[in-house]
């Protein structure tokens, strides 16, 4: 457990969560959700949960943002809120 890193990441997490929900452009929102997932992976790596961090790395970088982008591509990109 590296408390210096953890404190920084926890603050960043809240910031990215709020941004990704406030952005009106859904494409940007899904990419920023990717940043949220990167930070989560770092947090778990810092908490010594390597397998969880590995899963989050593979899922967050590889597939989850791609799924969101695919849906945004097939529906609409603008959001009203």
């Amino acid at each position, binding site marked *: *457990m590296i408390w210096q890193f953890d404190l920084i990441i926890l603050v960043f997490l809240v910031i990215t969560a709020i941004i990704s929900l406030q952005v009106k452009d859904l494409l940007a929102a899904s990419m920023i959700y990717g940043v949220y997932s990167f930070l989560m992976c770092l947090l778990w790596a810092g908490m010594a949960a*390597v*397998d969880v*961090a*590995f*899963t989050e790395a*593979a*899922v967050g970088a*590889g*597939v989850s943002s*791609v*799924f969101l*982008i*695919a*849906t945004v*591509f*097939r529906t609409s990109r603008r959001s009203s809120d």
Partner: protein
Amino acid sequence: MKSLALISVVITGWLLLSAVGDFPYWGDPNSPANSYRLSQHFVTETFHETAVPNMVTAVLADYRGYDTMFETVVIFTAGIAIISILRVFRSDDQVASGQTVYEKRPDLIVDTTCRLMIPIIQLFALYVIAHGHHSPGGGFQGGVIFGASFILIALSRDLQAAHKWVPENRVLNLAGIGILIYAGFGLVAMFLGQNFLDYAILHKVMPATPIEARYHSMLGVEIGVAFTVTAIMYSIYSNLVSKGTMKEGL
């Protein structure tokens, strides 16, 4: 509506925060979760009982094998659900493709980079599956990475090119085979007279001691998980990106 949501969220948050005082301190080795007998047993005895250095893999595939098997089934069910929600089988489909027919301009730089990268991603995924016992990794992670390599094929070329490698029906067969591999290990153990998913008895059909039988069965189970996860990840992507028509991907 928004103010109502805000009020309810604030009340819920306040209730949860008022419970925070009862939690143990962060990183306390004597907290209830850490001093629980089962957790201690998993840390100290796993290596002696299964010969696997990575405790997470051992607990995942052996001690809690039942749980993991049905998590895999949940993933499989999610894939089936997406197909039944979204897939359209009519060939003259007007609904999905509002756009004009897309002519793909091949991009030389992206195509070349992806071509050089895809086999290495696949090799890395297999490495992750095979070395789940000694380093972080295992069926779930390796499966997702392997699925991502197929997604990369579909992105760098188009969906049809990826379908030439992994046709739709073969994908679903693979997903089913994965679960069958997993359940097969449990059933063989059951037929040999032990409980479902109790791998130690498999030394009767393997050239190994009971401890090694557990070690090797875990690898087999991880391979089954990897099959299912690979197939379902690719299936979800190909359905979502084409709105169920399996044509004109991203």
